[in-house]
């Protein structure tokens, strides 16, 4: 027993760099040798899927890219999944893209590049990239009251009045569904408070894991139609639309990384209590 306790105490005081290396390996190895893990959609991801599925035919869908390269691994698979789902059944939906983050513009361009390789889309007929406008919640409020005051040109500087699919689009009430891929401020909170709540347009969100706890009350109250929670949420959505992508590939790495962290949390706590007990004893 004493021998076992000594080992635990040694693990508890291991150099932090050893832990970094172990976590790195736990994440890297499954990425090099992909392992299939069972993925079961959670009710909140299922709600997003159902919300997208229930959009009436020939609808206008607004997707906001409110994230940058730093949170790309979590949010990008979600926005790609949503776009694929919207376009997959050829139901005549039109996609309008906005960005509350300056680097969201490049995330949107990257997503459109990938989507354009899979679907035969025509710019300004099937989708329009309205682009980025600084102003955070003021922009969402502006879109809710008069979109044409916020966007007079799209991201390619084409006047809104010359874009066919912008005809009849004056504010958020002209959309049948909204989705925000959100990594923080501005993002989901602002879209709920200034976009969805005042207009009543259904809104779903894909967020970084760190935001989930704060956003979940909006799902509970029905202000958000489901939430894709971090990389697991993205993987669940990929599973729901039956299009495996980088999120599903990353789930094994995610799981093994967690196992190592949990293991060290347990060992660290055990080592703390053993050391405390020994100090008390002597």
């Amino acid at each position: 027993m004493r021998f076992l306790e000594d080992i635990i105490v040694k693990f508890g005081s291991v150099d932090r760099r050893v832990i970094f290396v172990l976590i790195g390996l736990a994440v890297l190895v499954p990425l090099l040798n992909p392992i299939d893990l069972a993925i079961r959609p959670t009710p909140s991801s299922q709600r997003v899927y159902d919300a997208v599925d229930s959009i009436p035919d020939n609808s206008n869908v607004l997707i906001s890219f409110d994230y940058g390269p730093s949170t790309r691994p979590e949010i990008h698979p979600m926005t790609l999944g949503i776009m694929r789902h919207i376009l997959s059944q050829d139901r005549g939906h039109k996609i309008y893209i906005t960005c509350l983050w300056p680097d969201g513009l490049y995330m949107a361009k990257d997503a459109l590049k990938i989507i354009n390789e899979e679907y035969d889309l025509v710019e300004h007929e099937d989708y329009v990239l309205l682009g980025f406008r600084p102003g955070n919640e003021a922009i969402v409020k502006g879109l809710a009251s008069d979109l044409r005051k916020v966007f007079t040109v799209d991201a390619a500087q084409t006047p809104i009045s010359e874009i066919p699919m912008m005809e009849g689009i004056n504010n958020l009430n002209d959309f049948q569904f909204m989705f925000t891929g959100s990594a923080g401020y501005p993002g989901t909170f602002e879209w709920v408070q200034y976009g969805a709540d005042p207009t009543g347009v259904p809104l779903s969100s894909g967020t970084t894991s760190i935001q989930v706890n704060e956003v979940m009350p909006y799902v509970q109250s029905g202000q958000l139609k489901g939430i894709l929670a971090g990389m697991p949420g993205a993987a669940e959505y990929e599973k729901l639309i039956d299009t495996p992508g980088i999120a599903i590939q990353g789930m094994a790495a995610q799981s093994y990384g967690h196992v190592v962290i949990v293991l060290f949390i347990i060992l660290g706590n055990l080592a703390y209590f053993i050391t405390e007990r020994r100090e008390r004893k002597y």
Partner: protein
Amino acid sequence: MSFSTILGAWIAAFLTLGIFSYLYKDNPFYKIAEHVFVGVSAAYWAATFYWTQIYPNLFGRLFAVDSPFASMYVIDKGHEYNGLYFFPLLLGIMMLLSVFKQINWMARWGIAYTVGIAAGLKAFGYLSSNVISQIKSTAVELFSGELSFFAMSGDSIFNNIVIFIGTISALMYFYFSREQSGAYGRFTRLGVYFLMISFGASFGFAVMGRISLLIGRFNDLILFSNPSYNYGTFWMLGLIIVVLGYWSFQNPERTEG
């Protein structure tokens, strides 16, 4: 693959590994990556804000095709002339005056205006979406014949009781006008447990988020280690290890963790 793409991949691999090298200890590679990140971000934000907001939405209105200055200079971004926009221009200039000690008081006007607008906007959003809607969603039915007793998620009598007790006990914990002892103290203690569960979930999600970001960087590093990128990751990794080893050898006092 074009030279610029390969060069970009090599730079990305170098900067990623440079940031990772901080896990060993603070070092010149980390400093380079950190400073490049801050510098590029600041420049990128400044340029983006100017070309997406100030140029089209401010100057686009002040120098519109129908403006009195049209004979001198025109910016056609689909706006009509609006002289009121000289006001935000003036406030913006006043904010920049904070760098001059003699007249830096002028900056307060612009800051006060911005803070006032932000406070007004936030108050509206919070009141309607957070306060009223959240209070409504917490007012749940506790004993309804239509609800099942237990469900893993969504409405059920059990879940509603948990929401009710959790909300009340956590709120009571922050009521400091009464000593938290006896039955009342035990109830507020329950509130603390609810808060701790919430903090634990937040910590778990935070770890999950960080692992996701690590997966993203590893995915890129794996991609850049391909022959099509001329094994960029391996070259950069080798360079950083060799130089970092030499640097640590030359500065032994700095290598102690």
